[in-house]
């Protein structure tokens, strides 16, 4: 089985990786999209003053 790996997915912000598996006939058998990034906004916003969040959460995605 042939594997095509697209890493990184380009022309977008953020990180993504696609793995495509081809069967013997060359058709797509299965494709996987992976997001390989962990930053932890869900946790590190906890405990910050609420009026500060408009200056933290924009850094989730700045595009």
């Amino acid at each position, binding site marked *: 089985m042939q594997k095509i790996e697209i890493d990184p997915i380009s022309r977008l912000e953020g990180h993504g990786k696609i793995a495509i598996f081809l069967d013997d006939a060359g058709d797509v058998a299965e494709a996987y999209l992976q997001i*390989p990034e*962990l*930053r*932890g906004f869900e946790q*590190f916003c906890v405990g910050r*003053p609420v009026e*500060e969040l408009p200056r*933290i959460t924009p*850094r989730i995605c*700045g595009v």
Partner: protein
Amino acid sequence: MPDKFKFAFMPSASCGGCEIAIVDIDEVILKVAELADIVYWPTALDFKDHHLEALPDGSITVGFFNGAVRNDHDVHHAKLLRQKSAFVVAFGACAQMGGIPSLGNFWTTEELAHRMYDTVPSVNNPEGTRPQLKYDAPEGELTLPRAMDRAYALDQVIDVDYYLPGCPPQVKWIVAAVEAVASGELPPKGTVIAGTKAVCDECPRERSEEKQVTEFKRIHLVENDPEKCLLEQGIMCCGPATRDGCEAACVTAGQACRGCFGPTDNVNDMGAKLASAIASITVADAQEEADRILGHLDDPAGYFYRFGLAKSMLGVQRGEFKPEAE
């Protein structure tokens, strides 16, 4: 100029705002295109890792790295960019000093993951499924990078030549950096390409000789006087320790500085400098009074190291003590 220069732009644990800042230089981008070939910029053009790997070592004139170093894939990218580039520029606050992603250093990676995959209200994951570094799919093996124990600044991982600070870096300093490359007049290694003084020196707000604060207040609870120093009005502002060059953008817009340009040349630790600045303007006769006034700063470490926790000298120690707030 015999050949065209070669530029590469590498993203890591970042938000993409730095890449937008590059595009924000408007028509100067044409000058950049005239001056240099872009040999790697996956956010904007169709480049893959193998394109970068195929380049001869040291062949990139300037490699711009944005984002913190969060996982082993970022480490690989950082080292690869170093190997291929004559100069490496830490582009933006994350690469310079950890940035917003390094706020996660207050917790362990396991705690961050637990929140993200188990307890966030929008997640329904009764089986506790977590991303695996390796997964044997029926069709073949899939792999993911391993998140390290914390977010690192770029210079904690590789040798860095210059720093372009800011969240995001300001257009005029990006242009200044490009012009320096074009003219061949490079500053000494380690230079932070921005101002050399503090934000207060650029700030248009009026300061009195003797700052005296008897109460710290949260910014939304006061109607702040746009002519007067925010700190003097009891609003926490990181201006005294922060490098200038942003033309006091936040303060001019009515918001306090949060230090995205990082410390000035003569400040080693941003938090220590800010703690001393805050202490010196607080007016109290007794310890209890000082405790009461400073008690209103709910999240001092979060204010003082908002963009630079990875570079804090104290570092976050884990295992000894957990504040109740966590």
